[in-house]
């Protein structure tokens, strides 16, 4: 779950990480009031999108009137299709240098990793590899002073700035660990006459660990269907095609999409309903798919944990109660295959044994309809 900048900065504050003075507002009037006490300000749209600056979602003002005007303008914008509902009005920092600092998870090393660069402020993908310091953290001892000194040495940072890092970085690491963050990024990390200040905050919390952080607000940037899928604990992604696809397992679901495309079809979605689903969850997944009005329904089940008879039963149940009649291409093998096939065939549904056959049939049906 990505956090809005202002939420990230609230967390930073809690952990003693310096952030600019500022305030979250929802109207031009509030923006003007907030600006009154801050002198020159920066007004930042609070949306979960990078490159807000380039898109016009960040602006400056030297007085409340200007702040009012700019805030009003930004609040009417859409940034990458996202409505701007909140603004962060902050003091404009006296920035001497813009750095980059982040903590994230290095899947290869199975460890947290520090990313640090003297080239902050810009799009971080544009920073040349050799200007980006990457330093893994040994979780059994955490971030120690020597780690910070070593990163500073590699950055070429010493003296007062190194001292600041010695205080700054362990706090960011603590936040990263305590909050189950996938990413805690500061770009730019501003060097100011008052020391290091986090001029931005991009914090992403591990969805699987949200239960441990009940006080965090729930942030959604999904379509209604995707939200419904999330409620059902289904991995669902909307796509542009017309063949609705349902399979069990992320890999095989992707492979099914790939094969649909391979044979010239257009997937309408990605839906992995996972392993070991019962009749009810399977029904819910099916109902969700039917709600998207696809031309064809393609079901690809290789039962392992998932039992074929359960899927078959659920399918027949949904079909009988909803009475839909779109073409269905059903592949069913694996655990309790015989029982599952029997149920479907009794209900007059043809069952394919290979993915290939089922996908080809689905693509043909989509073309025909």
């Amino acid at each position, binding site marked *: 779950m990505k956090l809005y900048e202002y939420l990230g900065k609230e967390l930073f504050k809690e952990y003693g990480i310096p952030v600019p003075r500022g305030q979250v507002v929802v109207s031009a009037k509030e923006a003007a009031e907030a600006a009154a006490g801050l002198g020159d300000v920066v007004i930042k749209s609070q949306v979960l999108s990078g490159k807000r600056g380039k898109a016009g979602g960040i602006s400056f003002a030297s007085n409340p009137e200007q702040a009012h005007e700019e805030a009003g303008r930004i609040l009417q914008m859409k940034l990458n299709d996202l409505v701007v509902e909140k603004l962060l009005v902050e003091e404009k920092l006296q920035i001497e240098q813009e750095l980059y600092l982040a903590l994230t*998870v290095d*899947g*290869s090393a*199975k*460890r*947290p990793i520090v990313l640090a660069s003297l080239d902050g402020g810009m799009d971080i*993908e544009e920073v040349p590899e050799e200007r980006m310091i990457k330093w893994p953290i*040994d*979780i*059994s001892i955490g971030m120690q002073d020597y780690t910070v000194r070593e990163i500073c040495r590699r950055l070429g940072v010493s003296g007062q700035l190194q001292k600041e890092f010695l205080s700054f970085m362990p706090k960011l690491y603590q936040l990263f*660990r305590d909050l*189950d963050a*996938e990413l805690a990024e500061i770009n730019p990390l501003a060097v100011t006459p008052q020391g290091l200040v986090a001029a931005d905050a991009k914090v992403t919390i*591990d969805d*699987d*660990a949200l*239960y*441990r952080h009940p006080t965090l607000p729930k942030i959604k940037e999904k379509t209604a269907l995707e939200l419904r899928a999330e409620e059902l604990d289904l*991995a669902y*992604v909307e*796509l542009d095609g017309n063949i609705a696809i349902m*399979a*069990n*397992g*992320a*890999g*095989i*679901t*992707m*492979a099914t*999409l*790939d*094969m*649909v*495309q*391979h044979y010239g079809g257009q*997937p309408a979605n*990605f839906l*992995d309903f*996972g*392993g*070991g689903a019962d009749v009810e969850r399977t029904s819910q997944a099916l109902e969700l798919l039917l709600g998207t009005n696809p031309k064809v329904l393609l079901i690809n089940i*290789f*039962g*392992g*944990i998932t039992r074929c008879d359960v899927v078959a039963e659920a399918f027949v149940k949904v079909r009988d109660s909803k009475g839909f009649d779109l073409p269905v291409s059903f592949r069913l*093998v*694996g*655990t309790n295959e015989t029982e599952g096939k029997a149920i479907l065939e009794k209900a007059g549904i043809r069952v394919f044994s*290979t*993915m*290939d056959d089922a996908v080809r049939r689905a693509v043909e049906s989509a073309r025909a309809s």
Partner: protein
Amino acid sequence: MAIYINKQTRVLVQGITGKQGSFHSGQMLEYGTGIVGGVSPGKGGQSVEGVPVFDTVFEAMEQQPAEASILFIPAPFARDAALEALDAGIKLLVLIPEHIPLHDAMDIMAYAKTKGAVVVGPNTFGLVSSGQSKIGIMPNKYFIPGPVGVVSRSGTLCYEIVGHLTASQTGTTTVVGLGGDRVVGLHFIDVLKQFEADPETKAIVLVGEIGGSAEEEAAEFIAREIKKPVIAYLAGKSAPPGKRMGHAGAIIERGKGTFDGKVKALTAAGVKVAALPAEIVQLIKEKI
């Protein structure tokens, strides 16, 4: 021979009294797995499928020493159970649960390293040395002995491919599911190294997917270290960028981990990449 596990491997099942734990203990026993004990706090003294149940892993290890353990434990409690197993001396830990928090997974991996233990998963179907021992949840009937080693990031897709091999009477030495999470214990490289050293493995199938850099790292390693033929299948060719496709890994970001990039890297390393799962059979037959 086989890698990681064999007929002699003594296995504990953590969470054996749960629905999944008891069902899959039965399946594993049927396959021939040497399950010597189960662990369920508060349920010590019971038995499941004839297997004695203990309150703690330490107790199980005193009564029924084991090398491996498989976890059927809800994600919020998996970290504690995994650390317990490692602390008690388990050297091969198979983590079935999905949704284990990322930081918990890092904790587990860090501790496993200090203990010199191998972790498979989390979010894996486990591993099986065909005809000898299965520590996982894959359907028994597809795993028959033969000359092919298989390593996969995803589960059902792996069954699909092994199913094709089995249908053509091509069996497997060991099949390893790495697990779909961002932090997992074994990577392609670890398993490839084992297959290369295993005299019975004549060819290797690598089942990958978009996202992350595991396939690229594998390609580099194969070019350098692997003499045996490697065939790959990659899922996600059709996936649009920036969308998360189920697995934490299966997301294309920042221009990295793309389908094309992975195919290119593997091909350059001499790996044949199959366009469809079924093609694997033919490609393997050409090599062995």
